[in-house]
Every structure is written in C-alpha cells, then in structure tokens.
C-alpha cells in the first residue's frame, strides 16, 4: 500500500498556500519544518501544554493534535501572522510592556490563546482571561504578569468602548 502525499490548499497568515504533505505529519510539524514558522512550539505533544496553540478557522487549537492534511481549505493564523513587519499586535506590545515573559517558550501559544479570547470578547474579565489561558502552561512567570498583560489590553478596549458610547464623566 503506497502512502500518497496529499495536496492541500489553505490560507496561512492571510496568504494563500499550496502544499503536498504525507498524512502522518502533524500541522505543527508542517508549519515549523516546511514553512519555517517556528513560533508555535512542541512542548508535550499531547494537548496539555498549549505551546503549539494556533488559530484554526479563528479558533484556538493545539497544532500538535491536528493532522497537516486537515488544513485543506482552512484558515490558519500563527503568532507570525499577528505582527505586520515591525509593527506588533497590541497583545505582543502589552506582553513586552508588562514583562510577561521570561524564557519565552510558552509566549506564542499564550498570546494566540489571548487573541482568540479577545476576538470573541473584546473586554474580558480577569476570570475569563484566566480561563482562556488555562490550557497554556508557563513554568517561569507564575502567570501573574501574563494575566496583567492581557488585562491591560482588555482595559484599553473597555476605555475605547466607553468613549465610543460617549458616556461623559466616566474616567479611568
């Protein structure tokens, strides 16, 4: 029985991509080794640490638990897709401003989980933030600064939405 390569067409960080891939390769391996997108990391390889978190059709998933062939017709965003050249995403800026990383291994997955949260809820509470990153392990920071970094983005959104609603007299 010959194990054929499959042709897949998908969107990768807002660009069309075509690729040929064997079925026994995970999406994470393909992204890292064939596309040089090494932001997503392989930690546990079993869906427990979240270091490989990416957006798959706008949902946070563990790329280590997806077969690369499943990417056919999907829309994929990795940490590399959040920044525009030197211009960082507001979450990336906030992680730097709040010193929310030490070794950095968990950071891409952490930021993608936070991004998925902000995409569905632009001003989450602290508990919602903690829940959103509960599938992402960090062994350096103790999470405090990570939660603060995400909170500060959420707070900015809340400020904006108050301005947008033209509620006078409410100051942060």
């Amino acid at each position: 029985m010959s194990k054929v390569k499959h042709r897949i067409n998908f969107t990768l960080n807002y660009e069309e991509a075509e690729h040929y891939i064997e079925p026994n390769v995970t999406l994470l391996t393909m992204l890292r080794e064939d596309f040089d997108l090494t932001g997503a990391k392989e930690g546990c390889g079993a869906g427990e640490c979240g270091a490989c978190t990416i957006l798959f059709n706008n949902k946070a998933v563990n790329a280590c638990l997806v077969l690369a062939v499943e990417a056919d017709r999907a829309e994929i965003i990795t940490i590399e897709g959040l920044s525009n050249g030197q211009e960082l995403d507001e979450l990336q800026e906030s992680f730097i401003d709040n010193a929310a990383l030490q070794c950095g291994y968990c950071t891409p997955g952490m930021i993608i989980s936070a991004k998925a949260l902000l995409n569905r809820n632009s001003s989450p509470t602290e508990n919602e933030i903690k829940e959103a990153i509960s599938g992402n392990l960090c062994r350096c920071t103790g999470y405090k600064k990570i939660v603060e970094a995400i909170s500060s983005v959420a707070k900015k959104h809340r400020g904006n939405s108050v301005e947008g609603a033209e509620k006078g007299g409410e100051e942060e």
Partner: protein
Amino acid sequence: MMKEFDYLKPSTLNGAHNLLVKHKREAYIFNGGTDLIVRMREEITNPNVVIDIKGIENLHEISYKNKECLSVGACVKLSEIPKYKDVTEKYAILTEAIHNIGSIQLRNRATMTGNICNASPLADSATPLLVLDAKIVIYGKEGLKRVLVKDFITGVRKTILETGEIVTAIEIPIYEKPIIGLFQKMSRRKMVDLSTVCGTVARINGEIRVALGAVSPTPVRGVKTEAFLRGKVLTDEVIREAGEIIVTDISPISDIRASKEYRLDMAKLIVKRGLVHIREGQLNWGEQSEA
C-alpha cells in the same frame, strides 16, 4: 513520529461505512483527533487507514428533534454544544461536564461522540449522559439503530460498535420539568486534568439518578443507590445512608491518580454533596413558585 497510514475523507455516511467494511481492523475512524493522534504518536494505535468522518456534512448538525430530544451530531465540537440554544439552561449538568474536558484548545477539536466512543472509565461527558438516558445513534448495515449509553460502553475502551458501524449522533431526551443536579469532578488541578473521580447526581422526572466515573471499568449508574432513594424525602439521615450504599454500586481500583480507598471516599462525597444540592434546589424551586 506516527507510523505511515492512508488518509481518506469520505463525504457520505455510506461511503465511510463501505471503507470501514473494506479495511476492517486496519481502519480507524478519525473525528476530533485529540485522542487518536496522541495514541498514534505513541504507537499504541497503528491504523493503516484513517477515515476522517468530518467530511460528512450532516454529522455536524445540532438540533432539537420533534420536541423529543436534543440531537448532537458526531462531529459537533464540544465547545459548540453549550452555545446552542437553551442547552446550558436545559442540561446544566452536561454543559458543566463538557466545560471540564481538557482545555479550550481541546474542546475546539474534540467531540462528545469521541469522548463516549473512546469509552474511558473517566470520560467526563459520560455521567451526565448516563443520568439523562441519552441514546447513541449508530449507522450500520441495517440502517440506523439507537442504544442507551449504558448499553453502549461495555468495558475499558470497549463499545458494542462492530466493523463498519459509525456513531452519527447522541440523542438526549427533552425533559419537561427542570433538572436539578450537579456534575462534580475531583482532579489534581482545576482545569486540563483527568478525573480522579467524577459523577453526576440529578433529579430528573421526579426521580433521583446517580452516575459515577473512574470507579468501575465503565462509567456506571448507581443502581442500588437510586433504588434506595426512590420515594424518600432527602433527610440528613437518608443522604448519609445513600453515601454508604454507593460503595456497593462501584468497584474502584488503585492507580496512578488515586488509591481505591480515596476513590471510595470521594464517591461517597459526590453522592452526598449532590443530594444536598438537590434538596436545596427543591427548596428554592418551592420558594419561587410561592412567590
């Protein structure tokens, strides 16, 4: 690294059935993949053919059918179930259990059907489905058949599924009266962990139903406990006694997560806490209807 396999993605149920019949034990059904990929990587499961059923459109449906049941298609992601209309209000015990399965990333991929078909003794969605008398809908050579979840799981990672059969949906009866109940999970960490013991205690259609996970080769109903509780008022004494009877319904073992003795104690606690919750819930309902 996974061993090599062929990946097939049929677009019809019959197509998937024919492929399963053709490849027999060489083939594995692939759905959310969160369990199978781990097993393939560890080379515990080494299929020659992987049949992805996510290309079958109607397996992605979730709907209320004929006011009789909630039907959750085999490929509906766990994260989608609580968002469907009124599911969280109607079946809080189930959505609470779902909330306890893995992480957000996992729930965006994994399915309830997969959780049940894996037939783990500690499957978190199993105990609410057991007390709800959920039915597993199976497509096979004679068409569709329905089996109660309690008859579907037969042992550790064993189900009644035969070659060529595919679970298409899980159907949960609609109950007219509100369900008062509690799903509880004991684990080492609050999130992203396997249950040391889990269970659901609920009052459904006027009777108290109990199911526990990780205390027997399969998730089980507390048959003797339920029989004892039938028609009884939930006094402190009745609740205490029910907590003793539950140990005769289960047969826990010692393993990496806990000792047998710990599990017996936790099973008692789950039953007693659940019954107290029901008693308080009934009181609240009474107050509401008087107000």
